[in-house]
């Protein structure tokens, strides 16, 4: 490296700990915005009755990215995730304010039908929840009710394609008529992912999708997430920081309902900018 092209940081630099934003600062720092957002969330507040669970969250979710949402229990990361496809509509006392858009359209607009919305923004839950039906019917059900298939052969094709995308086809192709609930935990979760894929989503939300799985099944799902990113946008809530660091390109840290910091996953896990992020990911008392 030529001397003229370099500058020594050392003389003027302070330590990372000195540069960290103070714990009392609660406005989001980092990269909230992206150049190619699939979803945009602006000033989102979520209330459960009088209690505010999410405070003024502004965040973009980029096309074909995996964004991980991390934070301690009760920080609001799952609440926020559930806002992204209006799953909180089921909770009577829950109220969402602010704006959440998918490809520019406000998903909380009165014109939006939540049924097709939840097909476009699918969700995979912590515990695998296959329907008490055959493996085939678990996949075929969604495309049928959404009118995406008209014939048996079309349905067959969707079932096969979805199971292949979820990496499950080879394991179940000879027993499609058997109950989905008879599969192992990891297979059931991949079945649920296949079920989500079958209705052509734009975005897949995952709420701790591997927390009930063993390390091998977890690795399979993580590998799948990596493949799915080529076609879909994925937002994942996880308590495993190792998982967040393995599967995501950006990471968002939530704390007591505030979005504290967003950054590239590399940056967040090697040199976070906020003291609260540093405390959490290093396992320190704040």
């Amino acid at each position: 490296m030529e001397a003229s092209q370099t500058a020594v940081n050392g003389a003027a630099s302070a330590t990372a700990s000195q540069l960290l934003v103070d714990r009392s600062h609660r406005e989001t720092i980092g990269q909230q915005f992206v150049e190619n957002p699939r979803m945009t969330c602006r000033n989102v507040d979520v209330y459960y009755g009088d209690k505010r669970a999410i405070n003024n969250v502004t965040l973009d979710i980029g096309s074909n990215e995996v964004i991980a949402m991390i934070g301690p229990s009760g920080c609001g990361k799952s609440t926020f995730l559930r806002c992204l496809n209006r799953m909180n509509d089921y909770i009577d006392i829950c109220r969402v304010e602010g704006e959440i858009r998918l490809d520019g359209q406000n998903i909380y607009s009165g014109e939006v039908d939540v049924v097709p919305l939840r097909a476009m923004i699918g969700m995979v839950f912590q515990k695998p929840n296959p329907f008490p039906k055959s493996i085939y019917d678990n996949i075929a059900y969604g495309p049928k009710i959404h009118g995406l298939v008209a014939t048996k052969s079309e349905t067959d094709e969707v079932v096969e394609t979805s199971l292949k995308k979820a990496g499950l086809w080879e394991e179940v192709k000879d027993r499609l008529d058997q109950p989905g609930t008879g599969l192992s935990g990891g297979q059931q979760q991949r079945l649920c992912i296949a079920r989500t894929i079958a209705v052509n989503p734009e975005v897949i939300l995952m709420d701790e999708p591997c927390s009930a799985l063993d390390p091998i099944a977890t690795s399979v799902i993580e590998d799948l997430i990596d493949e799915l990113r080529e076609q879909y946008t994925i937002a994942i809530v996880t308590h495993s920081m190792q998982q967040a660091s393995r599967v995501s390109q950006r990471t968002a840290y939530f704390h007591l309902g505030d979005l504290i910091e967003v950054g590239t996953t590399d940056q967040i896990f090697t040199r976070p900018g906020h003291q609260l992020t540093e405390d959490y990911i290093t396992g320190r008392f704040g």
Partner: protein
Amino acid sequence: MTTAKHIVRSYDEELDTLHQTIVAMGRLANTQIGEALRALNTADTALARKVVDRDEEMNALHQTADQQVLGMLAKRQPLASDLRVIVASQKIASELERIADYAANIAGHAVRVADSVKDLPLQHVASMVRDALQMLSDCMQVYDRNNAAAIGPIWQQDENINAAFAELIEELSRQMTADAGASQDHTAMLFIGRSCERIGDHIKNMAEHLHYMSTGESFFTRECT
């Protein structure tokens, strides 16, 4: 602010143990360099051999540091400042081990030139060692306090060592031309000078690792043009 304790107390204990190992390696490196120079200056072959033998202690400490680092990487999956401290400590341990190797080299050559030391240009080596010891001491203070602010001067001080080495080479060239019969001693002095110069380079590397440890950023930034 990062002085907050880990929730898992044994993690803090393991980090502290690694810290103590690196500090011990730093102290030993300091002793080895200083005693190698003293052995050279005073033609003390017994002291020189002691320095050579003591290199094993440094190798053992290096192995210990490696084991401590590997243990924490495997068990703790460190992140952020912890990750930087652990990775930087491993790299610093390697630099210190190499520094001690060069100190042992100097001591080995000191034994060879002991009979003719009064005729050799020792002042340049003394100057290099003085700078190296200062740089090493400053680095170990930075490691102890995790404060990158003091690193720039350490890094730049290596230029003094390089300049003194260049002067030594010039002086040796003159002496070799004038007295070809002493070429073995002069060659030994060249190796001693080279060892001092390499010690400076390794301490400079330490400063770079310390900068990363403290800030999470590379020591260098490429100026945008």
